[in-house]
């Protein structure tokens, strides 16, 4: 029944239609490009390339890594989310911030750092005499990726935990279940949508990652794909591999949708004002600190410390202030608008999906996720072709880069906006309309302010990803436009870690400031809601 209403909305409201059309085009153009290129392949060579054992091994490696990372991130994110939402642990706010900060650490930096830390000549051995076998292969990729991606899961689980109605837990307790049983049987099932949303981002991140797996020498699909582009100058067979990777992603999206089916409908309309009574940790608090501290040390302290150490070497000969400043400006001037644009585009898509839930609107949402999964190199090449063909004056402009970032990272923005929309039940908008507001006016004055928290998280996610982005930046940035990430990578690639360090540190520091700012806003937002409760 909602299909017709969704179609109605699309027909009558340009401010929904235009972004949706834009997103669909932005995602489908690269897909079309890949098909066109793949069709240029010589069928026999294509067949030989696609049907071979190596691909099966790559598939196994990719899936194995994705499952492993999901497992490890769950082990990290779950206790951390619980500690920061359900206990009286002092310093929960700081712990929350530390749990988000790894998003500011580029994956390749994390990989370089882990490589430099372990091994006979690693920092661990140098400073503590602790010889840990040098990380590489599966274990290395697993650790580096887990440390970089667990915040996606952490934040989603946190929101989910805060959203569970304490009355449910209390009634279960009253029915004679222990705290542990209640957690297992009442709380856990309700965390599933949040877990799936976070898990999806983690999974897609692993599927698409190249930086970490190449440095850790673990062969996954995206790694093979990169080799096709890099080693053989071959756009055509790379396109075939990209399509295979996309097929894998579609399978993941499909699986997630299946697991999610019916779960979201159970979410209650408005957020509960009441929070559950926090568990008093007492002596257990030291275990909490040890865990939280350990995670923070590994995921934030280690990279910052190591990169700082690299930089210390260089401080004497002076820092390249001018270049740092201009690349910081470049990074920010591309990432901030991209984050805003992504949130702006994701809002109508999430809105359609939440308010007019149907197969159609869900498909639109899933399509938006495909942009995230399209290999960035292919994505960028497709945009080159498209831009030059359709809007040549837009080529080599910041606008194109911003658009590309926004389309590519929009999937990260959809989730938080979705959950935020659940906080604003539809009849609030109807009330506003019966009080004389236009549809847009009702959205702007009622739903938008209520979604603010979700929007902030969306903006943060996209901003942080855009700050670290490499392949799209390489190909689509205006000539001479050098971001922090680009500089970091350029120097690190030539083993000039001392030169790379200031840029890497700037990324991390600036991203951390940004996240900190957002978190402060989030705290005040929740504070207002719960103050007198």
């Amino acid at each position, binding site marked *: 029944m909602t299909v017709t209403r969704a179609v109605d909305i699309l027909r009558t409201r340009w401010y929904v239609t235009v972004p949706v059309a834009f997103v669909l085009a932005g995602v489908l153009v690269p897909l079309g490009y890949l098909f066109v290129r793949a069709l240029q392949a010589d069928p026999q060579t294509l067949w030989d390339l696609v049907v071979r054992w190596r691909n099966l091994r790559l598939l196994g490696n990719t899936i194995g890594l994705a499952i492993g990372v999901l497992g490890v991130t769950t082990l990290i994110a779950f206790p951390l989310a619980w500690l920061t939402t359900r206990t009286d642990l002092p310093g929960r706010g700081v712990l929350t911030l530390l749990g988000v900060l790894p998003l500011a650490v580029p994956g390749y930096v994390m990989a370089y750092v882990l490589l430099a830390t372990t091994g006979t000549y690693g920092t661990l051995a140098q400073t503590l005499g602790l010889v840990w076998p040098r990380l590489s292969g599966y274990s290395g990729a697993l650790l580096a990726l887990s440390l970089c991606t667990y915040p996606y899961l952490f934040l989603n689980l946190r929101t989910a935990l805060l959203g569970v109605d304490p009355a449910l837990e209390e009634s279960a307790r009253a029915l004679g279940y222990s705290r542990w049983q209640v957690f297992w049987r009442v709380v856990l099932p309700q965390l599933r949508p949040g877990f799936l949303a976070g898990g999806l981002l983690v999974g897609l991140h692993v599927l698409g990652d190249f930086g970490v797996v190449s440095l850790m020498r673990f062969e996954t699909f995206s790694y093979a794909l990169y080799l096709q582009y890099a080693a053989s100058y071959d756009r055509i067979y790379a396109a075939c591999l990209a399509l295979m990777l996309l097929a894998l992603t579609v399978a993941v999206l499909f699986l997630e949708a299946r697991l999610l089916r019916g779960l979201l409908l159970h979410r209650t309309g408005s957020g509960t004002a009441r929070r559950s009574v926090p568990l008093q940790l007492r002596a257990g608090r030291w275990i909490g600190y040890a865990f939280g501290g350990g995670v923070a040390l590994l995921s934030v302290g280690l990279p910052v410390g190591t990169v700082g150490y690299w930089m210390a070497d260089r401080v004497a000969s002076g820092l390249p202030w001018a270049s740092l400043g201009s690349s910081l400006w470049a990074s920010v001037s591309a990432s901030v608008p991209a984050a805003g644009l992504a949130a702006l585009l994701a809002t109508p898509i999430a809105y359609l999906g939440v308010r007019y839930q149907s197969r159609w609107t869900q498909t639109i949402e899933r399509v938006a996720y495909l942009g995230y999964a399209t290999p960035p190199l292919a994505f960028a090449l497709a945009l080159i072709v498209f831009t030059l063909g359709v809007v040549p004056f837009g080529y080599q402009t910041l606008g194109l880069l911003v658009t590309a970032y926004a389309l590519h990272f929009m999937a990260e923005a959809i989730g938080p906006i979705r959950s935020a929309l659940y906080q604003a039940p539809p009849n609030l908008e109807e009330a506003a309309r019966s009080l004389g507001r*236009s549809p847009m006016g009702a959205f702007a004055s009622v739903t938008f302010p*209520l979604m603010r928290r979700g929007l902030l998280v969306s903006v943060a996610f996209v901003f942080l990803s855009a700050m670290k982005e490499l392949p799209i930046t390489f190909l689509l940035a205006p000539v001479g436009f050098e971001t922090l990430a680009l500089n970091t990578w350029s120097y690190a690639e030539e083993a000039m870690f001392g030169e790379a360090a200031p840029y890497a540190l700037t990324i991390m520091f600036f991203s951390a400031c940004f996240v900190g700012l957002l978190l402060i806003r989030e705290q005040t937002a929740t504070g207002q*809601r719960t103050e007198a409760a």
Partner: protein
Amino acid sequence: MSEPLLSVQHLTKRFGPDAPPVVHDVSFDVGGGPSAEIFAVLGPSGCGKTTTLRCIAGFEHATEGTVVVQGRTMAGPDVHVPPEQRGVGIVFQDYALFPHLTVLENVAFGLREGTSAEQTARAREALEMVGLDSFEERRPQHLSGGQQQRVALARTLAPEPDLILLDEPFSNLDALLREETRQEVRQLLKDKGISAVLVTHDQEEALSFADRLAVMRSGQLDQVGTPEDVYYRPRTLFVAQFLGRTNLLLSQASGREADTPLGRVRLDREADGTVLVSLRPEHLTIAAPETVDGPMGTIVDRAFKGHDITYLVSCENNEYLVHTDNRELYEAGDTVALQPLEPAVVLERKSTPADVPSGVTPEPSEP
């Protein structure tokens, strides 16, 4: 009779071209008289009453039929005036107060004319009207249910709409508060001269709150009339049952009289053949067996309510419910004579299943 304030004609609503209608050919007028009118749409949940309300408010597009407010067609063939231009206020079941705004800001939300000082002043007035002027800086989630309800009302009334729609506005209040609030709101609407359409599943609420009411079942209106009319002269079995408990009698009618299990009974209108008739418990009385010659029954149960007494009387394998004043005092097991006080109401045949047993109906079920 002047032009009605609200006229709904042949309203039909389907969700999807092949779906069965949720609202089917519904017609009624509100506020045709000299003073404001409160109209209630009563029906079990899922009967389409809220959809009807949403069509009037403009949140749903009517599939067929017209909605006319003060002579202006709001919905009709190729016409759909958006909700914000209808000048119709609505109070939702869960009040839909904006959690990010204070009480005063909520009430001022719909005021868009004049300076902001004037808007604030008018919002204060509206708050005073509902007696919440001391709460204006609070957030709605920090108010009790009854207070929230009154804020919602103030918010709806502040822009002075011609008509307000009330979607089960009292159902989230506890019983005691509900009755009190109901009376207050009714008084307020009457004082202000504002017409309203109330949607509810609570027959007591509809009967006591509305000037006129419509009973809705499966998307159609069974009967429209004054509360007394609908209560004492239900047209269908459904209406008879939904508005309270009643005694059903499967009878053989000829003219204005019928043979019923309780003997020969007068009818409210002429009928012939097998008919189902209804007698409200208060239209039946009992007397000592020796004083009257009527059908005899045995008291099965009684409930003393102070001002009156309800007896359950068994007679020829059927049970009947009788409300009497507290002067008729009997114990369970006593034999009594049953005696109708008023003519029985003939129920429309089309909605009378053949195998309805005679006797008292169960409590109207809460949805």
